[in-house]
């Protein structure tokens, strides 16, 4: 599975790390697909990373370089397609757009995420009263 790069810098216990990693695997895919989907034009890796870092919740760190293996996996699974755009600063940049398959997967995952979120929140609401 794709290792994701979202790390909570405040909590670090072996079990906490495992939970965080398990959670982040699917979450990162979902967030990256969403970032590509909401971009009006093809979006390059740095811009995706910048947006993720800018909007990440407090305490979560994000190693931007780990985004690229994930994007490559997405491309090989035909969830996204890329085009090379010449860059003045260095090598040509790969810009990404969602494929119809990517949109379908994003829609399905978003629905799953929302349903799961409601389910988890119902239980978490219960423990809030206990704390």
């Amino acid at each position, binding site marked *: *599975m*794709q*290792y994701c*790069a979202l790390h909570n810098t405040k909590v670090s216990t072996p079990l906490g790390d495992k939970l965080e990693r398990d959670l982040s695997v699917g979450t990162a895919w979902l967030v990256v697909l969403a970032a590509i989907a909401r971009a009006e034009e093809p979006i*390059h*890796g*740095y*811009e995706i*990373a*910048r947006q993720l*870092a800018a909007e990440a919740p407090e305490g979560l760190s994000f*190693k*931007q*370089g*780990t985004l*690229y*293996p*994930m994007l*490559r*996996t997405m491309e*090989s*699974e*035909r969830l996204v397609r*890329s085009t*090379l755009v*010449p*860059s*003045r*600063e*260095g*090598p*040509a*940049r*790969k810009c990404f757009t969602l494929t119809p398959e990517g949109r379908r997967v994003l829609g399905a995952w978003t629905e799953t995420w929302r349903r799961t979120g409601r389910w988890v929140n119902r239980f978490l609401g219960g423990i809030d009263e206990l704390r």
Partner: protein
Amino acid sequence: MNSAESTGSPDPVRVYLALLEAALEQQDAAVRHDALLDAEAHLRSAIATGLTAEQAIADFGTPAEIASAYSATPAGAFGRRAEGALGADQEQTTAADMWAPAAGGRLSRIPIVGIWFQPRAWTALLYFGLVGFPLATAYFVWAVTVGSLAIGTLPLILGLPLVVFLLGSARALSLFEGKVVETFLGVRMPRRTQPVEGGADSYFWRRIWCWLRDVRSWMSLGYLVGNFPVAVVNFVLIFTLTVLGVVLMLAPILDAVGVPIGVVHDADGPLQIWFMNRRVEPDADGHLWLPSGTAIPSLLIGFALMTAVLWISRGLGWIYGHVVQAIQVARPRPLPRGSGGAAQAAAA
């Protein structure tokens, strides 16, 4: 040239890329090539927005973190699309598994004859016996035609841009050939080519000069030309052996189902046909049948020959694929003199 280099200090991005390349040593060369290009494009973009190189590198992640992310990525993510579930592992060839059974189920693990059940051997056979030769011919014709035109017009001003055009087309054709090789031979290829350093310079003649001194472009052109004789040899070898093997295997089967292996219309002449050291005599209708006692040896020899052809195709495919890969991937970037310092600190 970037500002760091122009002031004499090592370019932190270059230093970081050298460290990243070392960290990715265990990765396939094509993956390493693409990862380095991605990293450079990312870091240069970050620096262009006003970040310091050290900050950009720190945000990007240490070479160990990036290498770990690539290691955790399914191998198939870098090859052709997985035919199944998301992230399903795929075949990939490495030096260690060159002769190991590839994907194809349990039957492919049978010693020697298991090769009949390995899809990679069949696709390699298809490549060398059918696809590779016409493609190599087309590349060769293109390179020689445009090359001749460019050399002929070199005394004129038009010659140099034509050479650059030829080099550019050679890079594009090499990249395309890489995709074909990846599809048929299963050796991973980079997704894009290393950019020509200075190739985007705003001065026309400086841009031409950058292209002319780009080793990778010349290597691509050399590949298009040099690949032709190699493709001819491969084609003749594989095609001839395959036809021979198939004929030897098919002849007894046709004979058994009552189909003659040949017909002689005018047998009055001094025509003598021999098959496996036995003379083939036409019947009253001029039909040729296998001499008795040759059916089983013919079948066995044909089967052995086809088995050998499949092994040869697979081995040739591995060698050929890695030669193409070596031409396409980036050469190791030399570590700038006196490197270390801030970039290494940020990378650590």
